[in-house]
């Protein structure tokens, strides 16, 4: 009996198995984030499955939010509608441009039940996926993630009632699988930028892409993870591990630039959350190569995620801003600016805001 219990507590074999979820706190996520080249419009979506699918149907949540510089945020509730099998490039063996006969992929489609925001996009992966990360923490909790930048998005969106508008952007797709409770998760900082100075050609990857992640479930080192990955024209060329990276932050994004979403959460009197840093810097090195990334936030959406195991909600801040990068990679010395999205997540732990 004991061996069966411990086997159930162990993660399923394989990094991202297509096996059913086997624990009430087991989760599977697909995350999407896109920015237009000038950074004036953004789309972020998350589709999540939670629960023991062996015993019940589990729970599916999906949320879609859009941002326009002049208009601000528009957001669905947690029940955005979309296909049962959402688009994910992780089902492909490699980017379609490298395949002789790329399979037909369904469009990415997600819509709020009221009809807006809504998006139907043809997504085109251009880059190789990053190396998957894994963090184990709090005994039997774990999280695995894998990101892929340089995903081109073309199609239409609607951010308010009316006719759809064309939307063309480049972004990032991520898959996550794990088992965690929100207080134990602590928090994370994820971010990406794609530098595509010559525009988004047919299947052409961005010139440079950067993805980074800092996962901080607690004080214990094994659970803490930090990584920065660098792509050049769709190819992953550097993976800087946690020992060679440093991350600093400064300032606080003005509260008035942070909108709590879905709007319903503000109406229900959701508890407050610590201020989001206004600036973030990362630097890493590997041998003689080095990367510096500087990010300044401009606007943020605070997505309030109800916690299944505590009274404190977990908040994911999607912060839109601008990144400046400086790279020294082999003989190349490059610097560029590009719009970027950084996710600051946390809030369910006691230190975040003591409301107990």
């Amino acid at each position, binding site marked *: 009996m004991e061996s069966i219990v411990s086997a159930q507590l162990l993660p399923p074999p394989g990094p991202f198995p297509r096996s059913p979820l086997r624990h009430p706190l087991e989760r599977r996520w697909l995350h999407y984030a896109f920015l237009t080249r000038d950074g004036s419009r953004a789309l972020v979506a998350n589709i999540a499955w939670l629960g023991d699918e062996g015993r019940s149907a589990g729970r599916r949540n999906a949320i879609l939010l859009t941002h326009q510089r002049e208009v601000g945020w528009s957001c669905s509730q947690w029940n955005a509608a979309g296909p049962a099998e959402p688009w994910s490039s992780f089902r492909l063996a490699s980017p379609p441009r490298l395949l002789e006969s790329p399979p037909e992929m369904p469009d990415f489609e997600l819509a709020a039940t009221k009809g807006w925001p809504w998006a139907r996009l043809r997504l085109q992966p251009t880059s190789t996926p990053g190396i998957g990360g894994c963090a184990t923490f709090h005994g039997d909790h774990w999280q695995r993630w894998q990101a892929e930048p340089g995903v081109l998005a073309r199609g239409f969106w609607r951010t308010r009632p009316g006719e759809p508008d064309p939307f063309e952007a480049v972004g990032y797709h991520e898959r996550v699988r794990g088992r965690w409770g929100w207080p134990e998760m*602590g*928090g994370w*900082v994820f971010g990406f930028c794609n530098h595509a100075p010559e525009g988004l050609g047919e299947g052409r990857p961005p010139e440079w892409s950067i993805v980074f992640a*800092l996962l*901080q479930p607690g*004080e214990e*080192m094994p659970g*803490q993870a*930090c990584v920065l990955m660098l792509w050049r024209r769709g190819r992953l060329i550097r993976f800087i591990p*946690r*020992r*060679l*990276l*440093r*991350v*600093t*932050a*400064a*300032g*606080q994004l*003005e*509260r*008035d630039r*942070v909108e709590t979403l879905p709007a319903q959460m*503000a*109406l*229900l*009197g*959701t*508890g*407050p*959350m*610590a*201020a*989001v*840093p*206004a*600036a*973030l*810097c*990362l*630097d*890493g*090195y590997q041998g003689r190569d*080095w*990367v*510096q990334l*500087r990010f*300044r936030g401009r606007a943020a959406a605070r997505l309030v995620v109800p916690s299944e195991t505590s009274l404190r909600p977990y908040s994911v801040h999607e912060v839109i801003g601008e990144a400046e990068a400086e790279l*020294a990679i082999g003989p190349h010395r490059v610097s560029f600016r590009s719009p970027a999205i950084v996710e*600051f997540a*946390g*809030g369910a*732990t006691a*230190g*975040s*805001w*003591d*409301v107990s």
Partner: protein
Amino acid sequence: MSREDAGRARPASAPRDGAELIGRTVDLLAQRAPSILADAARELGLERLVLRFTDGSRALLQADHNALRVHPCGGEEPTVECLLSDASLRRLFDLERRPAELLSAAEFDTRGPTEAVLACWRTFQILAQRAAGLRVIQAVWTDYSRRIPQPPEAAAPEHAPPGPYRPYPDAAALLRDTEESAARTASVAATRVLWDGRGGAGWWTVCGPRDADLFEVMETCQRRALEEVDRLLPRREPRAALYDLMRDYPSRGGKGLRATLCMASCGAFGGRAEDAVRTAAAVEMFHNAFLIHDDIEDESRSRRGTSCLHGEHGIPLAINAGDALHLQAVETVLSNIERLGLARTLGLIHEVIRMCRETVEGQAIELGWIRSREVPSDDDHYVHMVVKKTGWYTCISPCRLGAIAAGHTRPRDLDLLGRVFEKVGVAFQIQDDVLNLVGEESLYGKEILGDLLEGKRTLMLIHLMRSLRGRERGRVLRWLARPRGAKDLDGARRVASLLEREGSIEYGRAVAARYAAEAESLFESELGFLPESESKALLRQVVHFVNTREL
């Protein structure tokens, strides 16, 4: 001179010498960050510190209750002397240096008994470490240090790419030296490490600034709240007999204390200041409605530098305008429902009902004393009355309303907030009463000695009546018992001189300082659950603003 003019008139020209520089710094801190001065004053204690500068200028630094004062050097013997070299002046407010590097003995030459030297060092550590974070102080010191002859320095290091043993990436540099960030934040941001390669603190545990620039923020908050008041007041007939009167008092300006507390509290509890604007506007309306009625009840003559509303338009129209402002304030609170939702709006309504009830009870207590010609003998009676009459709607409720607007309705936390700001309210009212006796009418905005003419039972008057004996006491009581119209200014001046002679004004100042100190102590001990942020830093400054304000 308007309040704005009063605040901006000071730093007109750059300081000419070290003594002026110190004077300007203390002056600015008194306006903008009084809690820093309060902490520095506590460290300096009773020491008389003479500062000498290499340009030959000298200044005497002394603690005065919860503030520091800079005087020209006179005949008084200093207990400690300090020579500040040009190099130490440059380094004192240099954010790039670590605190340990700031006070090198060779450059910061201090002479005196050991305790006094240590007190002097602690004072400068507070000034250097905390005031240096304020943008306005940085500006003054940077400007001054640029004019001091610079020693030859080693060439600045070249751009340092990442690698082992390299400095941490300077995230704060991204926020410095830009117009946009200067307008948004009063404090200079500091870099914090989230990950150093082996571990780090979560972004959500990052501490905010401990100090903030109160002066700038009060102006901004007041302007924003009054814009909202103006937007919400109807623009229809009857204008001349009602709506113009309702706009009158709000348009005369004010300190902005209530609006600042409301918005800062909202921010400190994790909300958005913008979410508290409408509530701050409602508090302003309640405040002005109370003032209109209060001026009639007290037979006041001037308010914020000009004639009272009932003096200009007659008592019936003024009462009606006050009633209409109350009604408009309730409607304004209710209109939060669209933005804040039902739960928070109900909480706000509950709070304003409590605020109004406490205020009218306090007013009733004081008017009752005046009617029955009674002067309470005990300070506790005064404190009880003043907490109700002023404390609730000036300090306690604006803070609680801000927290509720942020979505924080936990009664225990709101009560803790109330406990702290109850003390602030008492200190504020005593200081207000002191200013009525000794302030400048142009700055203060109300009729000087008006409280005596109205027969207000201030702490100083209560102290005086405790101190006086026999016929002198009887004369003052008889003068106080006269109706306002029968009281003359000469009589008020005579009572004021008695207040001075009996030490009642100094007593009032000391009690106000004591309440402010208690409030500060409670602030740190009871509100520790609030994470540090610029908004919390603002609340901290308000605690001491009541002592250093001049208007």
